């Protein structure tokens, strides 16, 4: 259990949120030109690193908005939270 600061509602318990997987995965501009392997890479292959990871989260039991989180998966420490469409912080 850990606390997540929703960019809209403020500090809330993790149980109010649902994780949405890795962030900043860009959809290919021409999917029809991709090979099956490249398309499978885009659809299914995700990093699952031990350490700092960029993730999407949804405040499912609150404002129902999506946002991005930079989280260390080894100790659940959250380094930054930023809204959808914003660039991740440099530091």
């Amino acid at each position: 259990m850990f606390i997540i600061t929703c960019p809209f509602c403020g500090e809330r318990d993790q149980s109010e949120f649902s994780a949405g997987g890795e962030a900043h995965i860009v959809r290919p501009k021409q999917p029809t030109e991709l090979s099956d392997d490249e398309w499978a890479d885009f659809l299914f292959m995700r990093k699952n690193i031990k350490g700092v990871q960029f993730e999407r989260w949804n405040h499912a039991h609150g404002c129902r908005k999506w946002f991005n989180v930079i989280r260390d998966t080894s100790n659940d420490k959250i380094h930054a939270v930023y809204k959808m469409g914003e660039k991740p912080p440099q530091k």
Partner: protein
Amino acid sequence: MLNINYPKIEKKEFPNLQLNLVEPINKLNLRGKSRDFFTKVGKILSIMLPTESNTSTTIKNISALWLSPDEWMIYGKDIDNNLKLSLETEISKLNIGSVTDVSDQWVLINLDGKNVFEVLSKGSPFDFNKFKNTKNIIIQTLLNHIDVILHHNDTNNIDLFVRKSFSEHLWLWINDSSRFL
């Protein structure tokens, strides 16, 4: 077939806690972002929609609750069919925003008394320490794993909105928890 009856909720009293069903009462969900939307809502309801998160505005018998940056719920005794029709014709039909009648979707239960926060703390992950000292705060959270909207409209007085299908279960849970205060 849709069950339109209200759940079997009768007024209950516990030490320093009163539970009461406040139904029927009209509730509308408003969504929109544009300046026109805010102006039209302000003119029709004579109320400014709160733009600050987790806040609400109450004027006379109408309350506007902030739900997300582009979503509000309004409820109150003064919301009648004429007001609803004006909002629909001025907002929905002109595609400025959306107006949805959620009166039958949410059930309003009023909790009153010094032990309100004791009961809520038993089944919610939310930290009520800051919440209980500030009026007109609105919180969407979980209570006994059920989605609820809490409106702190007066000291130790909370309007709790719960989805109708969960309301009887939550009501029984609140009753059961209140016995052990």
